[in-house]
């Protein structure tokens, strides 16, 4: 369907599509099999000016919004969400600075992220703090002009690969979630190291590692916003980044649909291409409708967020929840359309199905998304007084 993209948005789409087709598709199977981080592909993304889509021009970005970023993520995701999460993960790491950073922090870090010279990462999750971020145990103590960080962050996308990390740590444990703060930590800071690379079911091209802080001293100026604002910054960041996950779901579903239709037109059984059978057509039809609905919702939510409304949590959760569920369903069906071949690594849909699962889990499980939506409904209807 035509979503009446502006000329600039079409350029973004075409550029990302060209990278996906020329660079990602030929490399994705090997990157998946061997767990190779897409350094070269991200370099092409950087040279093509894609890393700064959502960053204002004054900080070296393209000056677009969530929607521009979503267009790029969707195109990259058609080919491989292991690559697109590495790309999008840089945005996730940058949002805390963009949302709550000081002018100095923005001037220092955003241009490096916008140019792709450095990629960024966001460190929130810990072994005992997943959906319940209140369980965060990493601490930051002010000592003179420095904060001293101790603790371990887990499953951090772009861990080890990124140069700039935004990290949530407790500055006042007694205050619970109001005692958390957000910090910028640069790779190479003494006391900051990485755990082993996780061996994952899917998105195997992406790097997922622990961030280990052992008396890691960072300048006081690297505190984002004020002490105690950490969780607020984290929640606002996730509100902005979730449409990116939704875009991964849309792209992945589209990629799986494209492969499925292509295959069904070619595969002959009982003397005709299997696409001639209504049983297959109906599956493809459902896949197509679900994918388009996810896209329409994701685009609408992204544009809504870009209009800078006050509360975006519910809409943001809508897009992530729906599109990731669609991606899971569509990729499962894609394997079914391929039959036995779909189960083999020779065709890309097997990888797509493995990849899809993470979308229902990361950046807030889909159960948490429903909580967010549920809470928003309670608030909304209470306000109406009915």
């Amino acid at each position, binding site marked *: 369907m035509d979503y009446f993209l502006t000329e600039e948005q079409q*350029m973004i789409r075409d550029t990302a599509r060209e990278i996906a087709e*020329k660079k990602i598709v030929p490399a994705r199977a090997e990157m998946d099999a061997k767990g190779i981080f897409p350094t070269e592909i991200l370099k092409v993304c950087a*040279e093509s000016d894609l890393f700064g889509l959502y960053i204002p021009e004054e900080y070296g970005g393209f000056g677009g919004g969530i929607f521009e970023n979503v267009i790029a993520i969707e195109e990259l995701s058609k080919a491989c969400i292991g690559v697109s999460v590495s790309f999008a993960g840089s945005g996730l790491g940058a949002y805390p600075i963009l949302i709550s950073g000081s002018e100095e922090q923005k001037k220092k870090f955003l241009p490096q992220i916008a140019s792709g010279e450095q990629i960024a990462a966001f460190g929130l999750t810990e072994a005992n703090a997943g959906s319940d971020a209140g369980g965060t145990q990493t601490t930051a103590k002010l000592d003179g002009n420095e904060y001293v960080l101790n603790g371990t962050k887990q499953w951090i996308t772009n861990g080890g690969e990124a140069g700039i990390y935004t990290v949530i740590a407790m500055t006042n444990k007694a205050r619970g979630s109001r005692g958390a703060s957000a910090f910028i930590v640069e790779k190479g800071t003494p006391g900051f190291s990485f755990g082993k690379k996780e061996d994952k079911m899917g998105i195997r091209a992406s790097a997922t590692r622990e961030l280990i802080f052992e008396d890691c001293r960072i300048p006081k100026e690297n505190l984002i916003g004020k002490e105690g604002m950490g969780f607020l910054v984290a929640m606002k960041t996730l509100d902005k980044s979730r449409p990116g996950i939704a875009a991964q779901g849309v792209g992945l579903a589209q990629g799986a649909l494209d492969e499925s239709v292509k295959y069904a037109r070619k595969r002959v059984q009982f003397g005709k291409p299997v696409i001639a059978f209504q049983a297959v057509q109906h599956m493809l039809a459902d896949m197509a409708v679900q994918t388009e609905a996810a896209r329409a919702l994701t685009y609408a939510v992204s544009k809504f967020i870009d209009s800078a409304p006050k509360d975006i949590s519910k809409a943001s959760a809508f897009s992530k929840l729906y599109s990731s569920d669609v991606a899971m369903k569509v990729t499962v069906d894609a394997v079914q359309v391929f039959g036995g071949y779909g189960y083999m690594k020779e065709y890309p849909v097997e990888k797509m199905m493995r990849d899809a699962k993470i979308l229902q889990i990361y950046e807030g499980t889909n159960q948490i998304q429903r909580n967010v939506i549920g809470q928003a409904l309670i608030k909304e209807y209470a306000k109406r007084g009915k």
Partner: protein
Amino acid sequence: MKIVVCIKEVPATTKVKINPETNTLMREGVESIINPYDVYALEEGVCVKERLGGGSVVALSMGPPQVERSLKEAISLGADEAILLSDRAFAGSDTLATSYTLAMALDKIGDVGLVICGKQAIDGDTAQVGPEMSEKLDIPFVACVRKILEITEEKAIVERMTDDGYDVIELPLPAVITVVKDINTPRIAGLKGKMRAKKARITVWTATDINADEERIGLTGSTTKVTKVFAPQPRGLGMMLEGSPEEIIDSLYDHLKSGHVI
């Protein structure tokens, strides 16, 4: 250094069909693209500029006004400016007239250090315009360059691909080279390039602008006369002979004999 890259807009050949009745190309509705070899030439021009740490890359083409689109693409891929030679008087040019016209334009551009072309165009496949241009400009020429080993403002050392290896050639500049696709991997046009291309104005020069002799341009200046264009008849099926070398020789002899070839 001023580097000029010559670009030809061609039909995307994989999609072109030949009308069997008129024996002409059916170009209607077929997408036009920059001749693929010229994309390598452009990339190399941009690379040379980057290597030298300065200078400019000019994309030059001759063709109807719609070629502006391809020249804008050249700008998105790194050309600093683009010039289109467009005039009804240029229509029907063969390689002789084309190379004369391009040479006149290069003269007008002036102070050109290096001219890079693709080794040939995928429509005409003549590979003549590059060398003919160098003759008219009276400067050195090297075909099928696969690598520029060294380049300064004064000279270049290049590898020329041959059937069984390569030659290393040193040539003084200015010069004309044509390149093969082994020379580089063309970049993907980024957003900044595309935005620049969108805003760019393409310079258009007519025959008068380049002081072209009207006897030497277009159909009048062309010495090649096309008498007939036809699609070759498909050849019959080939035959694979199997067995030991001796058996194959015997079988081949029998076939040639029975076919009255020998």
